[in-house]
């Protein structure tokens, strides 16, 4: 029993340690740019990755500013796509499952925005379809992938890859969760710092 637990934790640590911190820094810069332009962040994924996307949106839109909610009139506008189950099923049923992200994304996307795509294999057809749409309009893409990165890692501007053997979804999704939280905490510290600095002045 203990052996299994230790091996799993070691695996998780090992894969998280392989993530290129430069690529996370690039992702943070992309989000910083979007904030300066008052743009929006669209995030999506399938299954567990969609759950990560939803979780991150709730953190990012509120937790980042939660120490001083009333002092920040401009906050982040992160949106999980599709934003309702009805939209999800309508695109899937009426147009095709590959359009569940690209379809709604096309409605929203403007030049000031960015995209965060999450896919463990990096090869989900509906993910790459949406990412290709963003790239065709020169929109920055943050890609969170696993295994060997797949097509998503090739296309993304910030290539956040959790390298594992193929099929280790748990390790990849867990690491993605940590990285998404890291981004939230970075911006929370940043906005706290800005307020403290203004108070001093």
């Amino acid at each position, binding site marked *: 029993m203990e052996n299994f637990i230790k091996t799993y934790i070691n695996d998780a640590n090992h894969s998280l340690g392989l993530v290129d911190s430069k690529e996370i820094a*690039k992702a943070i810069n992309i989000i*910083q740019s979007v904030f300066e332009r008052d743009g929006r962040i669209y995030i999506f994924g399938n299954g567990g990755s969609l759950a990560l996307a939803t979780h991150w949106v709730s953190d990012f839109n509120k937790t980042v500013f939660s120490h001083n909610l009333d002092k920040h009139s401009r906050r982040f506008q992160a949106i999980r796509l599709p934003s309702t189950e009805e939209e999800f099923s309508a695109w899937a049923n009426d147009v095709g499952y590959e359009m569940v992200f690209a379809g709604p994304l096309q409605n929203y996307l403007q030049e000031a925005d960015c995209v965060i795509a999450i896919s463990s294999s990096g090869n989900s057809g509906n993910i790459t379809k949406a990412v290709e749409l963003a790239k065709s309009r020169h929109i920055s893409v943050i890609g969170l992938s696993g295994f060997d990165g797949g097509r998503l890692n090739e296309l993304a501007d910030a290539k956040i890859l959790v390298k594992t053997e193929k099929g280790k979804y748990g390790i990849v999704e867990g690491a993605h969760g940590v990285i998404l939280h890291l981004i939230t905490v970075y911006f929370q510290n940043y906005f706290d710092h800005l307020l403290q600095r203004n108070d001093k002045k």
Partner: protein
Amino acid sequence: MIIIKSPLRISFVGGGTDLPDFYSKYPGRVISTTINKYIYLVINPAYHMNDFILKYQITEKVNHPSEIIHDRFRSALLDYGIIKNGLEIGTFADIPAKTGLGSSSSFTVALVKGLSAYLGKTMSNGEAAEEACRFEIDILKEPIGKQDQYAAAFGGFNIFQFNQDGRVDVEPVLLDYFKRSSLEDHLLLFFTGITRNASSVLGEQRLKIEENLETYKKMSDSVFYFRDKLLAGDFKGMADMLHEGWLRKKSLSSNISNSIIDSLYEIGINSGAWGGKILGAGGGGCLMFIAPPEKHMFIREEITQAAKVSSLKEFQEIPVNFTQSGANIIYNSNR
């Protein structure tokens, strides 16, 4: 209607090595950052106006782009084949032109991005930078380099490397917010009130590249040392490099500085600044200092007083924050 917002920039080290006369012999490098001062461009398809209307320091109203006086507007509209009249373009800016903050290339980047959007196309940062270079350097034959176009198009802290074959590599300097804001707290920027045309200074500089080749090589290589000091948060070390660079650059062209600029710079140093430089091609523009924050008030008072004595009516401090975003279309009703 299309609205484009394009940032100005502060360049720290390597200016001049982005001239083709240099980078055709040895890779040129510049380290710079964009700041929260912007050029805005508004493009309005005014189909019922039956004219081309350009609003900048003056207003031009012409029937065909070939009649436009403003060279960038004229060459861009003609080159893009936008010759059917009924188009209105206006510019707005946070800061006057010719202050050494790269405004003229920032404007051109906004123009090429905006006109592309008007034609229904989007541009990558690299494409926008190269297009702006094509207009300014290839078509209008201005004797300028490529750093400002790239700074405005990409945004943020970057090292730009200008390769012999004309390609430009962009390496972002990944600074966390703490170092970024700490550098802001050390930085002072003053508009001298003296404006100059970059082309006239760069013209002379260009002629002397051959004889100063070794100096330029050193400037290009020193960009990496400057980056390392920046990443380490060694602001004193950065300031020392700026000071050395300032002295070195003054030796390159007689009109990079003049006695007023020299004396303002010396007052800054004597009042406690660690180092600094004139921004832009020189002869005027902005003076930048890196100084311990507790000395800022004194430096500010001394230098403002000296500017008053020299009758620099437009002299003013420009408080800046660093930014990450490059030129961007912030509104497009034609999407």
